[in-house]
């Protein structure tokens, strides 16, 4: 039934939507398609081939870079999950002097331009608190992990706090009246409620870390190369479908994680509505 506000059914808007969709997706589609190109060129199709994917797995540097990216993302996700959840709990439960400035401060990592954070960490980790050199892997990734955790825990705090807003304090009160200690209340009552927020926050932090370029650009070194950095040097110096293949894999990974997050959110919303 077409109402006056049923914009989607009107062809001008539908066309606009389709054009914007094409604008957003065609380049990515072309990227994926040409990753299977049986030729060194990235714009002239010669035939279907998986050789670029094979070449990726043979490129030890790229594989190592990908490994680094995964480790950094995992470690920084764990750290930002902990810090973000604690921050969310602090702001949710307590009222104290300096709360408003703290909230503003917590929002800073999100708004500060990446380049400023990147150079700040560069200077910090080289001149002020030099990260020890010649550390075994994965400790040598520590500087990057710290940098990533710092800018992503604000996001996690945001997400978890939004989730906490729907927590019914009466349950905790009841448990407290029955004699349960703080830790027990937290573990058995609050955490289960927070889980969707924690999962969303974790996925968010993981993707932010995996994707980051600018901040990692400034804090990484020749022996701590991450996947986006390696792809950047490939884009700069040797543009072949191998770059397309590497990109496709990364797209699949982040798309997969996003789909997972959204599915969990959707399931949660459905459960709430029920």
């Amino acid at each position, binding site marked *: 039934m077409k109402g006056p506000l049923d914009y989607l059914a009107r062809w001008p808007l539908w066309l606009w939507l389709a054009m914007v969709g094409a604008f957003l997706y065609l380049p990515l589609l072309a990227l994926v398609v040409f990753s299977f190109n049986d030729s060194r060129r990235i714009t002239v199709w010669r035939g279907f081939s998986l050789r670029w994917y094979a070449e990726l*797995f*043979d*490129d*030890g*540097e790229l*594989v*190592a870079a990908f*490994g680094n990216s995964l480790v950094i993302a995992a470690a920084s996700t764990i750290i930002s999950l902990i810090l973000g959840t604690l921050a969310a709990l602090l702001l949710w439960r307590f009222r104290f002097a300096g709360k408003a400035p703290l909230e503003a401060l917590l929002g800073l990592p999100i708004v500060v331009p990446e380049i400023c954070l990147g150079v700040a960490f560069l200077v910090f980790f*080289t*001149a002020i608190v*030099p990260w020890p*050199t*010649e550390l*075994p*892997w*994965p400790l040598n990734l520590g500087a990057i992990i710290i940098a990533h955790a710092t800018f992503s825990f604000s996001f996690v705090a945001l997400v978890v706090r939004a989730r906490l807003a729907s927590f019914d304090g009466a349950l905790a009160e009841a448990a407290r009246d029955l004699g349960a200690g703080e830790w027990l209340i937290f573990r058995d009552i609050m955490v289960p409620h927070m889980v969707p927020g924690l999962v969303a926050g974790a996925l968010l932090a993981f993707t932010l870390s995996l994707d980051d370029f600018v901040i990692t650009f400034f804090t990484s*070194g*020749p*022996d701590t190369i991450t996947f986006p950095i390696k792809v950047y*040097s490939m884009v*700069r*110096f*040797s543009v072949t479908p191998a770059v397309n293949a590497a990109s496709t894999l990364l797209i699949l990974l982040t798309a997969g994680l996003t789909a997972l997050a959204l599915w969990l959110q959707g399931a949660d919303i459905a459960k709430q509505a029920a």
Partner: protein
Amino acid sequence: MPDLSRRSFGGLAAALVLDGCSRAFPKGANGEEQRLNFYNWDTYIGETTLGDFSKATGVDVRMSHYANNDELFARLRAGNPGFDVIVPSNEFVTRLQISGMLSPLDHARIPNRANLAPEFVDVPYDPGRRWSMPYTWLALGIGYRKSRVEGVPDSWKWVLDSDRYSGRIGLLAEGDDLIRLGAKYLGHSVNAVTPAIMEQVTQMLIRQKRHVKLFHHDEGQDLLASGEIDLVVEYNGDIAQVMADDDDLAFVIPREGTLINSDCLCVPTGAPRPDNAHRFINYLLDAKVGAEIAKTIRFPTPNAAALALMPEEYRTNQVIFPTGPAMAKSGYGRFQGIGHIRAVEEAITRVMAA
């Protein structure tokens, strides 16, 4: 990089785990761990050089790379993170040395230095070669596509001061070099760039910019080969590499003269394995090894003994070993102080913003 290309995914995972368990390298007769961290330019080594060195000495070489001298300097600025041998260009040998970031070389442990051509034994940027040994030398010039260019563009004018090839020119993004070449074109020495000359060059570049298609960071030869541009300011070795695949490409040293560089092997302060470092440098100066490297990277070698082993085609290649009056007017760039660096940076920013 020979080592890494052999690794499969699983093998790499295992290697990474082993690395993480701080697998100790056995100590050699010299009391140092049997390994070496080599910080070099990308693909600036022979195909089997590192592997051959390992086989000959038992020392495992791990090579990381940087894209330009500034990256090298920035990396070492706060302290040596564990590199044993580095390859700065001549001007940066000076910069590193005056900042106390280089260890003096022990000539007794580098007997192969006798292989060096006489003009490299004592150089203005490192008298007596106390701090460095030459690895390659290189000259900037104009690489061009013969079929798209009239005659031979043997003057800097065609890239710096003319609209004939508008929209098809690629310049070096390296500010310092660009300013120096501009000065050379205007008839001055590369090491006497006064503020007045800098201003002149800046104005010229600003005027020329609308004819320049892009500024490249050392991938100029690829852009020339792919047809993106028809003239490019690049190093002779880089152009020699792409000329091997494409007959339509050529290289010329402009008649006003040009900038000569030399990439040198140095041992940074705080190198964990200085003796291995010396052994490695000595190895690279060996005649056969030098010839192997030259065959792969196609840059001119300062190693006279290696040169003697190279095929005629390499020794007489006018691109790799340019000769002639233009070369007589060419020279090394010298470090001219922090103030000069800042002035160059500002000039380049002005050119880019115009």
